[in-house]
């Protein structure tokens, strides 16, 4: 298996607030990797560092063998890293279809005519409800549909690595399960996935491996089976609350 993403000893700050304190992790091509941790552990900050919204003060981030520190988010999307940000962040006033087309924005003028229509059709196949409501405002969709839209938009960039930040937050168990199934289907089509999720049980069910973060550091790593069996993980993240999903 080849390495796709590596972070080693990454330190990231918000102004003077030191958030990532030497975080290290890696993702192999074709994997689903779960990134777990309590609120404020630094999961979102990790994703934002990878996708170029934040620049690490020190440490290495490399993608497919090259260092990507200091590259702009736009450049990284073109390179193959796309993020579905926390809290969906779809474009509410724009139509569902415009939202999706914007996902393909970085792919150049020619692709817009040649490849993009086919990709759009594929996203509509994956999420039929988006096709039904393609002319409606993105903001008029339900929470789960907005999450589908956010994922569909990210897929329009044809990412090699998809970063998902709590895609199931606030969704009904059934919809959450549907999102999880979609993630598995995407991996089967060749997309590598780094998944941040509060719901550790659901995440570990579909992930190959996982990392647990605490206060800006990775404190535990292992295969999903190892993590599910781990006592600390069980106590901290697999409490009763999560049993039903």
């Amino acid at each position, binding site marked *: 298996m080849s390495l796709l993403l590596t972070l080693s000893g990454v330190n990231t700050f918000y102004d003077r607030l030191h958030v990532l304190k030497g975080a290290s992790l890696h993702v192999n091509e074709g994997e689903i990797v779960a990134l777990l941790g309590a609120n404020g552990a630094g999961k979102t900050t990790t994703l934002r560092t990878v*996708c170029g*919204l934040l620049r690490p003060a020190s440490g290495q981030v490399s993608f497919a063998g090259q260092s990507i520190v200091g590259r*702009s*988010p*736009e450049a990284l*999307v*073109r390179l193959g890293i*796309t*993020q*579905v*940000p926390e809290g969906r*962040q*779809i*474009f*509410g*006033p*724009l139509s569902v279809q*415009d939202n999706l*087309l*914007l*996902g393909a*924005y*970085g*792919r150049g003028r020619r692709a*817009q005519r040649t490849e993009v229509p086919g990709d759009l059709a594929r996203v509509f196949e994956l999420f039929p409800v988006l096709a039904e409501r393609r002319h409606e405002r993105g903001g008029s969709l339900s929470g789960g549909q907005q999450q589908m839209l956010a994922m569909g*938009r*990210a897929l329009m*960039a044809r990412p090699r690595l998809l970063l998902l930040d709590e895609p199931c937050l606030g969704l009904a168990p059934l919809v959450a399960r549907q999102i999880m199934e979609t993630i598995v289907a995407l991996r089967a089509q060749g997309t590598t996935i780094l998944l941040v999720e509060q719901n550790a049980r659901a995440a570990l069910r579909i992930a190959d491996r996982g990392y647990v973060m605490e206060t800006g550091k990775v404190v535990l790593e292992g295969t999903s089976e190892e993590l599910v069996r781990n006592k600390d993980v069980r106590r901290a993240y697999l409490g009763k609350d999560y049993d039903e999903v």
Partner: protein
Amino acid sequence: MPHRRRELLGFIVAGAVIVALPLATRNPYLLNVAVFIGLHSMIAIGLGLLLGFAGQISLGHAAFYGLGAYATGILTVHYHINPWLALVIGAAVTAVVAFLVGRPTLRLHGHYLAMATLGFGIIVRILFNEGGEFTGGPSGLPGIPHLALGPLVLRSDLHMYSLIWPLVLVQVVLSRHLLRSRLGRALRAIHDSEIAARSCAIDTGRHKLMIFVLSAIYASVAGSLFAHSISFVNPNPFSFMVSVELVVMVIVGGAATLWGPVIGAAVLTIVHQIIVQLGGLYEPIKDLDVVIFGLILVLMLLYQPQGLARLRLPRLGRLTGEGDDG
């Protein structure tokens, strides 16, 4: 599509008003005010794109207006260059200047553009003032020739009116197309959420810069037309206060709307004229304009923050059975 129909209705109404006004009155004062509303609209439309779709404020657009006016003045008076060519050169120079002002600031977050343009506007005004014979200094540069279309010399306000208002219409049509295009989709996305836009590989800095440069070009063209319509330029119409008034026009009319900037330009130009007229009767009223504009701005932000163009007329809405916004 009701939205389409409403948009078309907007253009028809605007076109009808533009044609009807000079038919209804030949009052030179009213025509003169209409010319100024047109010039202010030209600038405000660009500022509206900048504020409404790039989320940025420029406090230096009077300076771009002035650059166009002075480029026209200097090139036609000192160098006897064809006025149309002078207008184009002025717009090109202004575009380059705007690029240089906008580039370093628009890549940063926050309202650095407002600060940079504020400083820029003040510097430009000083240059107009201190330019000696070249700019005419504080007393200005007279003797700017009229524009001509073939044999027709555009010397009256009616002529200028007939040139400026179709241009305003063209600008509005352009804005409409711009916002429907791929670029426009990107701009609306930036306006909605910059982080999400960047996650879509939209280079937000570059787009903001393009809009800023476009808005400066609009202001420059308006400045050239201004110079021709009064045959004279001096530094006064290009002060910081005018830059602020232009922004107020956009906010009052509604930034992210097609017609808002035009409506705002009309309202504030008329209010300004009323203040000037009343000031002729009772001198101290003149000094109240800052207060009045400030008051208008505050009231708008409190009660109609989306601008007059988004004002809902309940009876009209029921008549056409539409309630969604455009």
